[in-house]
């Protein structure tokens, strides 16, 4: 049986050309392999024969043949080839073990201990392939008191602290309605995997184990809130549409404003950019006779500071500003702030983003083919523009077992009879 093919790294046009990734993740880890694939890695998504849990996430797109495709699956499994493999069978484990001998990265997000119990843990696989970088992506990490806890997006966001900072004071703490923990956790998993690759390159080729905790990752969504406690034993909390913690007087600022066709974001800031913004807004309001004295009196606003402002001063300004905003549209606002060099943006939804000329002009969107559709979809392109290498979406998410023949047959050298037998035995 032949070896898995590897391209020569010297011919590379992408950062990770020639690297092989075995992706055994559940939804929490899906975007990790996607990002590695955007940078050229050959990512093989290895699913149970019944299909990955991500395939049954709603909502679904029904193709003309009547097959359902999970939008989550389509979104976060691009740039992967897909095979099925039953790790509960001895033969399945033997096949994975063989694949792992040639791999650079293994990604998995099963409950802690599960891969070890199959004989497919880091210690077992790295013994035969010391360069393997083994990244485990779980809700809470590989050890510790919560290691065996169940954690979906809701639990991760609760324990990360973010929810305590979102919603109305005293009312139900909130998560973001579109599940975010998968993308966040996978982003950090990719950072960890590449940090381990840097070490491997610089230090004689040894891989290592990367333990990623979704809870720990999502603590960063609290941004600097923890330092209020760390520095001064203050407890930031949720304030609805308002922002606190920016003054030493305790004043709070409105951040979300109703406008003619939705909502806008605007915040009274200090510093040079805030001073300019406030000055420009005052002029804009004045042009319609709507600027109050308290704003006009600030002149060029160069003496304005946020940290020492009082609540009555804020309220007086915000009352006038709200009357101004309620009469303009999101599009007028976006045009106005851009022309005037002001800080502020509309509260956009998916359709606004798809229509934004800034993204069009930068050729951000990449076409994504989808079975049964004539027109390709507009899909997020490269996460960054690199002057010297390729990055971005190369191909759509795989159908179930789509690359079994290519991987098991063409590359690993199983005959079609052997593959048939493995299929009948429920191995692939």
């Amino acid at each position, binding site marked *: 049986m032949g070896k898995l093919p590897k391209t020569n790294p010297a011919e590379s046009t992408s950062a990770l050309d020639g690297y092989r990734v075995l992706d055994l993740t559940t939804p929490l880890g899906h975007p990790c392999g996607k990002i590695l694939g955007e940078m050229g890695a050959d990512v093989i998504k290895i699913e149970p024969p019944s299909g990955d849990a991500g395939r049954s996430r709603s909502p679904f797109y029904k193709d003309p043949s009547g097959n359902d495709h999970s939008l989550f699956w389509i979104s976060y499994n691009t740039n992967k080839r897909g095979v099925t493999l039953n790790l509960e069978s001895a033969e399945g484990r033997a096949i994975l073990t063989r694949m792992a001998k040639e791999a650079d990265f293994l990604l998995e997000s099963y409950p802690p201990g599960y891969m070890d119990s199959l004989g497919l843990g880091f210690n077992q696989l790295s013994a035969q392939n010391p360069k393997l970088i083994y990244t485990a992506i779980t809700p809470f990490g590989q050890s510790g008191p919560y290691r065996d806890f169940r954690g979906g997006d809701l639990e991760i966001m609760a324990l990360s602290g973010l929810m305590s900072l979102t919603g109305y004071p005293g009312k139900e703490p909130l998560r973001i309605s579109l599940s975010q923990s998968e993308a966040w956790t996978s982003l950090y998993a990719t950072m960890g995997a590449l940090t381990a690759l840097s070490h491997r390159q610089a230090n004689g080729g040894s891989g290592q184990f990367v333990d990623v905790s979704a809870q720990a990752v999502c603590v960063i969504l609290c941004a600097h809130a923890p330092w209020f406690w760390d520095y001064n034993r203050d407890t930031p909390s949720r304030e609805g549409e308002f922002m606190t913690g920016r*003054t030493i007087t305790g004043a709070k600022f409105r951040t979300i404003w109703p406008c003619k066709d939705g909502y806008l974001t605007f915040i009274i800031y200090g510093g040079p950019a805030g001073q300019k913004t406030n000055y420009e807004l005052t002029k804009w309001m004045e042009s319609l006779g709507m600027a109050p004295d308290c704003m006009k009196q600030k002149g060029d606003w160069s003496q304005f500071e946020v940290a020492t402002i009082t609540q009555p001063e804020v309220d007086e300004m915000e009352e006038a500003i709200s009357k101004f905003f309620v009469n303009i549209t999101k599009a007028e606002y976006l045009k106005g702030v851009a022309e005037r060099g002001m800080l502020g943006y509309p509260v956009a939804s998916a359709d606004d983003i798809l229509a934004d000329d800034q993204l069009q002009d930068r050729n951000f969107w990449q076409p994504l083919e989808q079975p049964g559709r004539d027109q390709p979809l507009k899909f997020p392109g490269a996460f960054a523009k690199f002057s010297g290498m390729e990055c971005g979406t190369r191909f759509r998410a795989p159908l179930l077992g789509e690359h079994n023949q290519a991987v098991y047959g063409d590359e690993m050298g199983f005959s079609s009879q052997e593959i048939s037998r493995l299929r009948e035995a429920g191995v692939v």
Partner: protein
Amino acid sequence: MSQQALEGITVVEFTAFAAGPCIGKYMANHGAFVVKVESASRLDGFRTHYPPFKDNIKGWNRSGTFAMNNDCVHSIGLNLKVPAGVETAKKLVAKADVVVENFTPGTMSKLGLSYDVLEPINPRLVMLSTCNLGQTGPRAEHPGFGSQLTSLSGFTHLAGEAGGPPMLIYGPYIDYIAVGYGYIAVLAALEHRRKTGKGQYIDLAQYEGGAHFLAPALLEYQLLGTAPERQGNHHLEAAPHAAYRCAGEGNWCVISAMDDAEWKRLVEAIGSPAWATSLRFATQLARKENEAELDKHIAEWTSTRDAQEVMETLQKAGVHAGKVNTVPELFTDPQLAHRRYWRPVEHKEVGKHHAMLPAFNLSATPCADPRPEPCLCEHTEMVLEKLLGLSKAEIDNLASQGAVELEKSLTPATSKS
């Protein structure tokens, strides 16, 4: 101490606020030598504009927002408005592997430090520019902060109760997405350099990074003609899926049952009360239909119980549950403590506090204990000696021209900005 993963990599930062600095901080956590170019005449806004300040006393060495994003980083004072300051910056770049900058597009050019200028000096240089909307496009030069870009990027729209107004998402949410992608981009470009010998320029738009986190919504609009809306904590299909008030002031626990089997475990764990056996809650479809009533019943059960106890009882029964940690509780959370997520540091002006480590733990090359965030210009001499081999006399000469700034020359009065 074992060799760290990024040891030997030198990073020079021209950064402020979150999106640029946090990349350098994370690299420094893994052993890179990171130099932040600063000046008393052009301060990082996080040093000056926003609380928390230690003991509520403003001062450029007393900022918690700065602390979050700059532990392990070295601060060098260079005045880029003085020609010799720019020349010194170029000499540092010549010794660097990576430059990170997050000014408004065009600023590095105005300073005479664009990639076109730096690349001939150091062809192996990897330079990352990270900004709101990217270096090109009709609105490239429109300035903005992450806390508002989070709205343009579609996230604010998805926070709030069904039918209610959007809620603020705390902090510059999208900046930290860009931090992750920026860190990945830099390490990927360094990997590419190992194969090709060449550096490159990276243009990262935070807005575009954010679009990846919204991908299912972008597809939904195109494929189904709908866009996801605010729905509180509720789920499209599963119920219960919400936060419930627990005993005591301000305590909450989230509970979710993702299928009927999990619901049965939940019912048993709460003692199989009569209401829970009603047909109104027997199937996922029925529970979703009667969700308001379901939430009320569950809240009755949680309201007399401790949030930690609710979580542990349900988790033991195999049910998704999680206490809503408040900010102080993040520092006592036993799981985060087990991972040593927060590390004590001692800062010469702030005193004892904590730094946050990256959320991925490497088995062979763990992060070393961090150093605190630097005081302004704290490492000017050290960096100039280490990277450029300058003598004390040469450094004093540059200082007398106003090109470099030394911590000892900054008077205490000016440090209270």
